């Protein structure tokens, strides 16, 4: 137990502390940017705080962003540990949202409530996995670089979704580019009176599951494989399996996150389901150095920044695009911890 405690303490002290410092530094630079556009940084940051953490409602709103981001990020951890840089979460998220939404619409009338929810969750995960399959196979068996293929698949997903929502998947009699609304029994139940939903309860299980996986022999092989391919292979990792499975796991998680998005907040699938969460999740895992706890800290920080930036745009007229500058800076600063020492 004391060893585990020491490991936990070191993880929190090192990467997570650096992450908080990097965020503070980014906000300091951001303050200059806010001054440059003629707004008082004190006003701007007060609005940001109030909008993201200043009240129970704000916290509940922030939690709605944490859930999909964190699920996607946790799913990316094995891939980044294995040195597989899949940036396909964005597209897999959209496809997962679509399969989950359509399943909810068509299956709900025939199933008991709990089964309808579980079925649409599984459909979301299956959709995300399916969308990851081709880049995964190409990487595993032909050595085609996953960065470029997964990125291309993100674009293909946006156009595919647009077409499906305009035609085959469009809600009957709908004038809008969207599916039919999901029946209320497939929505994620919320906590008494707030917008926060039960997806939050799934997060601890996923977090603990990933911490445990990293300690298993398989998790160890994945990490060895990423650190030095030959070592991983010597330890029994088969390259194609590591590459394919890590990409598919990331896809399943992204699809599940898509389900959380539609069942927890959107309650129908819109063409605007793409929010850049996929890219943010990847940034989170990269800056968390593919470790679980820093990734959790990062997800909370990023979700709060995101929510706060929108409040800031409404409140003091500083564009919400500010958040990407902050997130880019945080990731840039954190990258200095990932130097190519000894290689």
């Amino acid at each position: 137990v004391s060893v585990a405690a020491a490991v936990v303490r070191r993880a929190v002290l090192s990467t997570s502390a650096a992450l908080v410092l990097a965020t503070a530094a980014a906000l300091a630079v951001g303050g200059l940017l806010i001054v440059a556009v003629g707004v008082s940084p004190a006003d701007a940051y007060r609005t940001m705080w109030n909008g993201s953490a200043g009240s129970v409602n704000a916290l509940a709103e922030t939690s709605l962003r944490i859930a999909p981001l964190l699920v996607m990020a946790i799913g990316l951890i094995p891939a980044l540990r294995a040195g597989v840089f899949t940036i396909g979460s964005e597209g897999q998220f959209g496809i997962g949202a679509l399969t989950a939404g359509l399943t909810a619409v068509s299956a709900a009338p025939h199933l008991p409530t709990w089964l309808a929810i579980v079925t649409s969750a599984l459909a979301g995960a299956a959709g995300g996995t399916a969308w990851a399959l081709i880049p995964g196979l190409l990487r595993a068996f032909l050595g085609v670089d996953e960065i470029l293929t997964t990125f291309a698949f993100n674009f293909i997903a946006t156009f595919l979704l647009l077409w499906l929502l305009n035609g085959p998947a469009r809600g009957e009699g709908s004038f809008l580019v969207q599916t039919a609304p999901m029946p209320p029994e497939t929505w994620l139940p919320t906590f008494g009176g707030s917008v926060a939903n039960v997806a939050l309860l799934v997060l601890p299980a996923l977090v603990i599951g990933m911490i445990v996986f990293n300690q298993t022999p398989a998790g160890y092989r994945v990490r060895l494989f990423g650190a030095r391919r030959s070592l991983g292979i010597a330890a029994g990792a088969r390259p194609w399996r590591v590459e394919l499975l890590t990409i598919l796991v990331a896809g399943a998680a992204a699809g599940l996150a898509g389900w959380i998005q539609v069942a927890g907040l959107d309650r129908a699938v819109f063409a605007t389901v793409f929010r850049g969460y996929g890219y943010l999740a990847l940034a989170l895992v990269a800056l968390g150095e593919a470790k679980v706890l820093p990734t959790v800290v990062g997800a909370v920080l990023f979700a709060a920044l995101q929510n706060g930036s929108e409040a800031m745009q409404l409140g003091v007229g500083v564009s919400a695009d500010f958040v990407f500058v902050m997130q880019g800076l945080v990731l840039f600063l954190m990258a200095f911890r990932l130097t190519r020492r000894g290689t």
Partner: protein
Amino acid sequence: MTVFADIGAVFSVSVLASGLRLAIPTALAAIGESISQRAGIFNLGLEGMMMVGAFGGFAVTSATGNAAVGILAAALAGAALALLMVFGAVVRRTNVIVTGFALVLLGQGLGNFLYAQNQDRLATFRPVGELDLGRAGDVPFLGPTLLSQNAFFYLTIVLGVVAALLLARTRFGLEVAASGSDPGAATAKGVSVRRTQSLSVLAAGALAGIGGAAITIGSVGNFGSNITAGKGFVAISLVAVARTRIGWVLAAAVVFGTLEAAEARLEGVGGVPVELLPALPWIAVVLALLTLAFSRPIRLRSPA
């Protein structure tokens, strides 16, 4: 057979002409990426550098009314973001992928943010027009394609030739190749790997910046949220397919641009839904990477 006839009509002279136009931004960025990759730095931040160039070029042209000054500003903006890449990936030897990805977010954020804050103050303008080459424009085939383009097109060709000569025929080119293939040996032979890589990454940033400006100054006369729309990643894909050889990079850019131009003409051909047409160039990228994998696996990044 009618489908083939339709496809024949799609790839007409006018499609090729607009294909060449659409190829410009990606081609410029891809020339830069080739230099950077030859020097051993995989520059994933290209998209961000295009974004700041697109905005910087637009803002300065809008303020000064001078497109040449705007292009210079775009190059400087791209190089400024590339300076962060130099400081991270070259000087401190950070993980290139993570630093590059950070610069994508940062560049997109900066471009979109600065535009959103200054939108009211920045007037739109007429994009740079085609050069008037007099009678030359009447030459069949060549007239409407190669001889009726704007300054960015000819700038791209000049920069492409300069880059190819620089890499193949100069001492600097040899130092770039040495730094990229064997930094240890290069250092032993007295080459400053750090200096060579820094200059190459800065060149990539400047070229990507001009590529961004080719969109805002050269074709739209305005800016818009995420206006580069993934072209930086397309450029990286083209460089992978062309294996950093400038001539092939330019050819690949033209093919991609022509596919983009053909989208509008493909409506109704073979029953492909209109919404799916913009996905075609991306499918082509995947297929190109796939085809190449059969001849030789693509390793963009040295295995860890």
